[in-house]
């Protein structure tokens, strides 16, 4: 059985103008020790999807349908103490913007000890020792546990966040834009660390980023989201080698490649649609270069193009 199985997940937000369908029916599965990348432009629903798994949605957000099966339990129905027992113990998250996610007036060590003491029946000395181990695991000097967040640089704070996510030895870690605010050199350090941890601890990971190149370096699987839907999903190598959906092709072409020829990358004209009133038919139709009449009327289903490679476009055919 898979570790995580998301089926037809729908997460909506109540807003003044109407219901905003941030995530509108996505499916994916994740096995133990696998890393999946969730890519897409800002506002495509990738963070909302992750928060739904953790059930950390803001007050006006709710899961409107579908199921999130995590180790045999439907997360969309778990509440109260049961939910609290799973959060951080089995699933943890590395939040976006490490700069602001730590409490500035608490010592970093204490911030990491907190979930350990909450979830496990251990005394403070044991927890403290664990924190020191975690610090050396993520490459921080264990003597720094008594320091405050402002004494750490951005990259070091991100390492603290990673240590915190690993505090209760979770099975699944969600990383929301883990390197976006960081410099290239620090980014490379953090990505390497995450990859090492993933293999060492046999972690399952969901890495959310708008930066395909970051995901290309870290993930086994890749899902491309557009306007609340997954439009393409396969192994990372397969998606890059053999992209099927025009949006995926556009995204890949939008990256300047330092190893390639010196030419201006292509862009995808237009803006993502309004998710309160999404367009009829294919949601990408307004920006698609291959758009035909059918795209504006009927919505393409996610079909299996090649074994394990799914895409949602009227113009892809199963290849057998």
């Amino acid at each position, binding site marked *: 059985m898979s570790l995580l199985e998301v089926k037809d997940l729908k997460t909506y937000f109540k807003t003044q103008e109407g219901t905003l369908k941030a995530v509108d029916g996505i499916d994916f599965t994740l096995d133990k020790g696998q890393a999946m990348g969730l890519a897409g432009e800002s506002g495509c629903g990738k963070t909302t999807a992750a928060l739904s798994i953790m059930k950390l949605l803001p007050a006006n957000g709710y899961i409107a349908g579908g199921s999130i099966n995590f180790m045999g339990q439907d997360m969309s129905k778990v509440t109260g103490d049961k939910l609290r027992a799973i959060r951080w113990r089995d699933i943890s998250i590395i939040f976006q913007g490490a700069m602001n996610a730590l409490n500035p007036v608490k010592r970093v060590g204490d911030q990491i000890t907190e979930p350990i003491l909450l979830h496990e029946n251990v005394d403070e000395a044991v927890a403290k020792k664990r924190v020191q181990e975690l610090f050396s695991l993520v490459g921080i000097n264990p003597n720094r546990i008594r320091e405050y967040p402002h004494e750490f640089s951005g990259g070091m704070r991100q390492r603290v966040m990673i240590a915190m996510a690993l505090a209760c030895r979770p099975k699944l870690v969600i990383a929301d834009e883990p390197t976006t605010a960081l*410099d*290239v050199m620090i980014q*490379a350090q953090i990505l390497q660390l995450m990859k090492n941890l993933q293999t060492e601890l046999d972690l399952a990971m969901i890495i959310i980023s*708008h930066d395909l190149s970051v995901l290309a*370096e870290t993930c086994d699987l890749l899902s491309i989201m557009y306007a609340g839907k997954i439009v393409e999903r396969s192994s990372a190598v397969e998606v890059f080698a053999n992209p099927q959906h025009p949006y995926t092709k556009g995204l890949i072409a939008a990256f300047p*490649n*330092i190893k390639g020829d010196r030419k*201006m990358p292509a862009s995808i004209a237009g803006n993502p649609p309004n998710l309160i009133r999404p367009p009829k038919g294919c949601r990408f139709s307004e920006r698609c270069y291959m758009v035909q009449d059918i795209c504006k009327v009927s919505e393409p289903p996610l079909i299996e193009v090649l074994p394990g490679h799914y895409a949602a476009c009227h113009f892809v055919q199963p290849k057998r």
Partner: protein
Amino acid sequence: MVKDVISVNNLEVWFSVRRGFMESLTSKEQNWVKAVDGVTFNIKEREIFCLVGESGCGKTTTGKAILRLVEPTGGTVKYAGPGLSPQKIKEAAADAVSKRKMTREMANKDVKEGRVEVRYLHKSLMKALRQKMQMIFQDPYESLNPKQSVYDIVAEPLVVNNLGANEAERESRVKKALDDAGLRPPKDFMWRYPHEVSGGQRQRVGIAGALVLEPSFLVADEPVSMLDVSIRSEILKLMLDLRDKKGLTYLFITHDLSVAYVFSDRIGIMYLGKIVELGPTEEVIKGPRHPYTKALISVVPKPDPRMKTDKIILKGERPDPAHIPPGCRFHPRCPFAMDVCRKKEPQPLYVTQEHWVSCWLESGVGVQ
């Protein structure tokens, strides 16, 4: 020969570290944060010169110092672009001489070459010159006033500079700027507020705000780093278009080498307040000479999992500009550091006609 619009020579921006009362009594030495510590480069007319480096290396401070948004503490910044009448150049030179900022010889040379020393311009001349030197800011989500309409934001520079005889003329200039920035038709955007336009359009508003004064030189500080990848190249293409149509010259500041690679004509790699390597873009990216440049290029994520390359991941984080290491400032992180690197600072060495590097590893073709 194409003339240099901007020539920066040995530019320094040092910030003093505040001392406590006791420290000043004990006459402890004044410490400085050397954000920019001797930067030299020039930008030719219609050229895109790119400064690349990690955050805190002083690239933004360099850009701001050229526009005097922060005051340089040393070195010179000369401007020789359009918008200067010979009379103004003479006036500026005479003023600098009378204030004993420049010798008469230096001033005469500037007059002869039709340029002004930006650092010593007095207030009114600086204000006039700023119309020709504008800046595009990094974050279009933070740099636009949410309470102002797009029209007000773009018209603001005209109001401040007292340009445009009447409202009708201002409106036509705003419309033209919006149109130039690709917000078409302008009347659809003019009365919207920043939250009513998308991220890419916000950055276009920022660009329109810079264009409305019809500048000839633009400092663009990470103009695409906050934008989605899918719309980045649209903004870059707009900037290229503007250069071709209006003959603009750019100083482009970025931490993203892959953007610099496709966009700029020449690149300067900055580390801790100094340029360590400078040359034509293709040469620097395809044939880097400085170990820092090599490391930076190796860690740029490749948009393809099949391309696994060896990364040179530097240990540690960038050192503090308040405590610049002696010798070569890169030596604590350099995998090839030698004895000489710890003691003596390397000087720029030309490896080809236009490509120089400051590193002891280069025996070089000739010394500057």
